[in-house]
């Protein structure tokens, strides 16, 4: 029985199953990355695949019981195989090195499985958007989006993270080169803990959490009033819409006015002869907001533009462009599995190299094949 569980035959079958399931995960739309509506539409147009896929859980294959079962069996097979191989007598230095490499390699697989399990079961994965000066508190309702592993019991830490400053570097043709975000963490009853810096490819780490910078944009301060009474005054984080390396900063804001109020920010602008606004830079130089009033079908009825520090009348209302700051978005993660994964990865490399080093050495020292 043990021989079967640790057999290469079983390993080959299990790896083949992993390949097939992974291929299904890569070819079929997966819940999570793909919106439910898109998956539903795909299933309607592919009824046969929809039936098979739905029955086998292939639309969420990497979290399906079938995939988990194959992973568990593979882990068991790997463990048994490694133990059995270690008990087999080997002769010669080369054989000992190969056996050591074999054991390391297969041990690394077990470590990777353990790390993957820890990541899936215990991690926290959230997303936040902060405007300069805004503070994030590590609590559930402060995340834009939050998911936790099913076995995670750790309570929220409650520390704060304030975005002190955000800046971006651009090439002469406005391609984004880097974003720099300065974050100030804080714990209750503790003093200044100093500044952290995050950039793309350079996440900030604090209290076991990583803050991975995702995107940046602009938050104009909009003051909306009527008869000198302020109805709302807020920094509004405009969406950054990107096509190639060109960016637009735009969003729809809710106002008491009928239809839709769409605002687009031009960080620096020029007015063409025909009155059309043209963006002339990514850094705030002479910023202007284009305010468009559209009906519910999105047809723009009229538009005005307002410079920083100025206001425009919208019927009986007044909209003032009172200030401008940057926002930055972060993926916030606490992943106890990652250190385990790192160990497993390096162990795997060491195992591979050790296992095949005698073969490669023999190849290089043997006569040629020409």
């Amino acid at each position, binding site marked *: 029985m043990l021989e079967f569980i640790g057999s290469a035959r079983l390993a080959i079958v299990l*790896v083949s199953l992993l*390949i097939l399931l*992974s291929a299904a995960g890569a070819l079929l739309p997966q819940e999570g990355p793909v919106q439910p509506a898109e998956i539903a539409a795909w299933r309607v147009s592919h009824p046969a695949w929809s039936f098979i896929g739905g029955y086998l859980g292939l639309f969420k294959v990497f979290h399906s019981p079938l995939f988990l079962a194959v992973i568990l069996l593979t882990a068991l097979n790997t463990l048994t195989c490694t133990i059995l191989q270690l008990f087999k007598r080997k002769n010669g230095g080369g054989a000992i090195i190969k056996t050591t490499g074999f054991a390391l390699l297969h041990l690394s697989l077990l470590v990777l499985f353990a790390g993957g399990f820890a990541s899936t079961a215990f991690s926290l994965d959230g997303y936040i958007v902060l405007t300069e000066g805004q503070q994030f508190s590590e609590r559930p309702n402060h995340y834009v989006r939050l998911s936790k592993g099913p076995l995670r019991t750790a309570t929220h830490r409650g520390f704060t993270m304030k975005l002190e400053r955000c800046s971006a570097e651009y090439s002469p043709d406005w391609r984004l080169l880097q974003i720099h975000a300065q974050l100030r963490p804080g714990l209750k009853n503790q003093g200044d803990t100093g500044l952290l810096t995050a950039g793309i490819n350079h996440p900030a780490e604090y209290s076991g959490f990583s803050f*991975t910078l995702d995107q940046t944009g602009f938050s104009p301060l909009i003051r909306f009033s009527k008869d000198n009474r302020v109805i709302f005054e807020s920094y509004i984080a405009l969406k950054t819409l990107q096509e190639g390396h060109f960016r637009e900063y735009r969003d729809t804001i809710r106002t008491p006015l009928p239809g839709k109020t769409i605002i687009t920010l031009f960080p620096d602008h020029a007015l063409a002869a025909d009155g059309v606004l043209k963006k002339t830079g990514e850094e705030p130089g002479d910023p202007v907001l284009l305010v468009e009033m559209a009906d519910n079908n999105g047809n723009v009825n009229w538009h005005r533009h307002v410079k920083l520090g100025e206001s425009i009348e919208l019927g009986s209302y007044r909209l003032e462009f009172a200030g401008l700051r940057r926002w930055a978005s972060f993926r916030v993660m606490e992943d106890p599995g990652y250190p385990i994964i790192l160990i497993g990865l*390096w162990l*795997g*490399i060491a195992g591979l190299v050790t296992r095949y080093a005698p073969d490669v050495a023999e190849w290089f020292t043997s*006569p040629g*094949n020409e």
Partner: protein
Amino acid sequence: MVTFEMVLFWLTIFIYVGAFALELFGYVGRKGNLQALGINIMWLGFLAHTLLGIMRWINAGHAPVTDAYELNLTGTWFTVLIFLLFIKMGKIQRTIALVVIPITFLVLGYGFVLRTDAIPMGPAFRSPWLIVHVIFAWLAFGCYAIATGAAIMLLKRSSSDGSESLDQTSYRFTVLGFINHAVMLVSGAIWAKKLWGHYWSWDPLETWSLIAFLYYALVLHVRSFWKWNMKRAAWLTVLGLLILAISFWGVKWFSPSPHPGP
């Protein structure tokens, strides 16, 4: 694409095609001197290829590892380098050039079709892990391509004379490719953690890369434990390169992914 760079590109392609023609005529006509000349011409092509890479580096202002054209340019450079070095050491047969050279100019050509403009390096690529990830990806591809070349030449043989040597070459380069592939995955995971916050997201490009890795693990298991070799193993190796080609170039055609690739 700057004019001089364009000239170098087509010169490289032309030289490789010339080398292939010499190899083919030498192989069909059993003229070893033509095949030897083909290898020498290939060295010339490699020189032009190197100059092309340097020119691209200068024009773009960064290592040629970001867009599809640059990745294919670098990848084929590594493939040819590995092949020529092992030919020089007398470790592999010249006839494998009949597969390696067409792979080279087809991949180069495909990269040319996709994009030619040199652009500054985006922030996502400004990481030392990019260099590690890309280099080992292409070393893996180069080794697998040579393994496949040996496999194809083995399949073409009607007699067993020389087949064992081709089979050994195919196995050894599969092993080398597998090790490089592992480093590619490791470095990719570390880079993904820093760039996206998570080391593995099951996105289509990552998943296909893992599929290719698992497939080659399967090939090595089958060779070691079931003692599959010669033609059976050769077919497995050829299929492996097809899976690898999907993971490198085919994924974007049917699955969108945030992951930049060739």
